């Protein structure tokens, strides 16, 4: 088929998602995913090599930006409690979903691992939006919750990168080169940005893309996943990005206009609606497993940090959300042949459900008291108290 017409259809879906997003205040990414489902099931839209490349590049940049969004000072400041909450928030759902998929649903070892990874995620963006709305993002508690979400995501990305890798010389080379790049990047990047940033030829963006492609390529050679170095590079460059907000804006334009629509539409169009219907019970059960295991891990810790019951449930529900990394993990599993299209469909539907349902329940029934919506609640614990309980 004419590639320009194919591009027109994909961009039309992205445009429609954007327009609906403006009217409904629902995230454009989620709408692209949903329109991708419609495109795949009703318009029989298919992927091509170049749409897959753009989608893959979109996933890499999404992951990079997710890593770069962390506030390094905040992470350092709340290292112990955020490590505790974030790790538990990753580990319990990972083990729970993996065990459920293996022993109850009867999936094989690899597909169960993919299920565990895809359902272990927490959507930092969903949590962030709520923290901003409630003003908690400016408090120690809010920063701690965000830092914990990053740790959960790091767990997801590491699991994705390590579990399926070939333990050979390529992996060794990849680990050594990545470690070297990460060690020198904060300084080298600072020097490069100071010297070349802001030129019309966008040298700093090319520098970034070079690193992402080169390390991503090495990761794939080791049968690992290109999003792993992307997330680590993001973490290493987070401090630099705080000082170069203009570059972040330009990068955001590229990512949201061209790349992420292809990623989310592709993630959606691989979803098979008949498989959603036949797998409805399993979808519900896996969603339940995710919510319960997140609750078992996060709610007691929220209590330990002296959050009142309502706010504790609210935080737990928010940390049960997932979207981007959940779909990235499921897509990785599908593309590598670890899961079938039906299993992919089940996992992505659970991921979409986990983006929507916990948020809706949290907003409808456990939204903090109105006073907390416009100002910092008085009962937010001080950092010293938080660390004492960690």
């Amino acid at each position, binding site marked *: 088929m004419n590639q320009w017409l194919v591009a027109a259809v994909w961009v039309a879906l992205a445009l429609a998602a954007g327009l609906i997003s403006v009217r409904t205040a629902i995230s454009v990414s989620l709408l692209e995913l949903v329109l991708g489902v419609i495109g795949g099931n009703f318009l029989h839209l298919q992927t091509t090599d170049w749409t897959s490349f753009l989608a893959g590049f979109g996933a890499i940049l999404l992951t990079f930006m997710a890593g770069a969004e962390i506030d390094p000072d905040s992470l350092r400041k709340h290292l112990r409690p955020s490590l505790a909450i974030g790790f538990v928030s990753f580990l319990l759902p990972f083990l729970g979903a993996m065990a459920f998929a293996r022993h109850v649903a009867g999936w094989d070892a690899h597909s169960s691992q993919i299920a565990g990874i895809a359902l272990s995620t927490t959507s930092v963006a969903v949590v962030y939006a709520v923290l901003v709305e409630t003003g908690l993002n400016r408090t120690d508690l809010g920063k701690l919750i965000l830092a914990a979400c990053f740790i959960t995501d790091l767990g997801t990305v590491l699991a994705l990168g390590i579990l399926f890798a070939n333990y050979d010389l390529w992996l060794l080379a990849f680990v050594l080169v990545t470690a070297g790049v990460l060690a020198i990047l904060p300084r080298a990047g600072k020097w490069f940005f100071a010297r070349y940033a802001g030129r019309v030829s966008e040298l700093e963006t090319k520098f970034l893309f070079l690193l992402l492609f080169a390390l991503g390529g090495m990761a794939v050679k080791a049968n690992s996943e290109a999003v792993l170095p992307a997330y680590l590079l993001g973490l290493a460059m987070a401090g630099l990005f705080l000082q170069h907000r203009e570059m972040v804006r330009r990068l955001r334009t590229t990512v949201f206009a061209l790349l992420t629509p292809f990623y989310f539409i592709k993630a959606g169009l691989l979803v098979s609606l008949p498989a959603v219907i036949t797998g409805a019970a399993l979808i519900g059960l896996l969603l339940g497993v995710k919510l319960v295991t997140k609750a078992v891990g996060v709610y007691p810790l929220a209590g330990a940090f002296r959050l009142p019951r309502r706010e504790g449930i609210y935080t737990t529900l928010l940390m049960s959300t997932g979207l981007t990394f959940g779909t990235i993990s499921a897509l990785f599993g599908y593309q590598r042949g670890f899961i079938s299209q039906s299993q992919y469909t089940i996992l992505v539907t659970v991921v979409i459900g986990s983006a929507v349902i916990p*948020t809706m329940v949290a907003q409808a029934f456990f939204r903090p008291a109105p006073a907390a919506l416009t100002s910092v609640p008085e009962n937010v614990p001080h950092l010293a108290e938080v660390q004492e309980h960690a």
Partner: protein
Amino acid sequence: MLDKILVADDGSAGARRAVEMAADLAARYQAQLHSVTVEEELPRYAATMDEVDAVQEQKARFFERVTAEAQQIAARYGVEIECHVISGHEVEAIIRFCTEGGFDLLVLGFMGHSRIFERVWGSTSQTLTRLAPCSVLVAK
């Protein structure tokens, strides 16, 4: 009689009329004039923090414009206006702000909806009129 006047300003044409009327009243009664704009929810189910930040930046530009317009209108009437931006559901947030601020009058712009919409949902101005702790003036 009127010491503190609050005008709800969502940047619409109706709200501009409300700001005019509130500024006029504030000048006549030598009352304090405040405006309140409600920042509604950020994108739900966002994929990246950047998506949230982008919407916030867009909103910040909108609030800057709304605030500047309100200040220009107030200046024409020779009064000062203190502008506030608060978060939350618009009815809940305005009522709370109005109650906590001890305002004597809440001025609103009328926003016309279809009959079906109003029958099903009721209008924001109707709900605010019903719930406000003080007198309410709806500018048409």
